[in-house]
């Protein structure tokens, strides 16, 4: 009975993790993707606990659920800023021509 509960729990987590991974990839908006990635990292961490790997889960929760998504968010904001700046610079000479 106990084994069956664990099996169901593990199976559910596996399916959920795979589904979240799909959601990460299919979220084309990079900002929203960072949030989904964080959720995915969290689920993967939980899955690792269920797979009897608590210390790996600890690393995954810090790195996969917090640090990497944070890096992604920072990268997006920097990229957006650069893209906007570049667009503005590209537009300016044209306006001067007018």
């Amino acid at each position, binding site marked *: 009975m106990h084994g069956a509960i664990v099996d169901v729990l593990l199976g559910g987590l596996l399916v959920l993790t795979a589904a979240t991974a799909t959601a990460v990839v299919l979220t084309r908006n990079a900002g929203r993707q960072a949030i989904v990635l964080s959720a995915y990292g969290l689920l993967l961490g939980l899955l690792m606990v269920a797979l009897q790997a608590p210390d790996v889960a600890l690393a995954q929760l810090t790195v996969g659920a917090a640090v*990497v998504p944070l890096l992604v968010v920072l990268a997006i904001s920097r990229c957006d800023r650069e893209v906007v700046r570049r667009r503005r610079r590209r537009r300016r000479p044209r306006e001067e021509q007018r």
Partner: protein
Amino acid sequence: MFAVLPYLAAGWIFLIGCYGLATSRNLVHAVVSLAVVQSSTYLLLLAVGWKRDATAPVFGDISPGAPVVDPIVQALTLTDIVVGATVSALLLALTIQVAKRHGTIDPEEIRSLEQDSGDDDGQ
């Protein structure tokens, strides 16, 4: 059937990450997809070492003879996570540089920008 489920999940995550990489129109998205591909290897490694009814390999409160899951793959996964995070960080830094220089992070647009600047290969 249940025993192969972790492998199926890992395989699915690997393939979906590759799909994301192949169809990506945004370099940040591509780097995240790559992180997803790498995460499939964590799951695969842990699945290899997992045994039903075995506990975590922490011998603080269990007797030495008790069934535990394989600790070696866990050590490997730990290394893999760190390596993966390093690669992601470096690639994101490069992406920021791309944005700075090209003003876009769409690979297709960068390609056409490069061709406009006269980077044609033809004779």
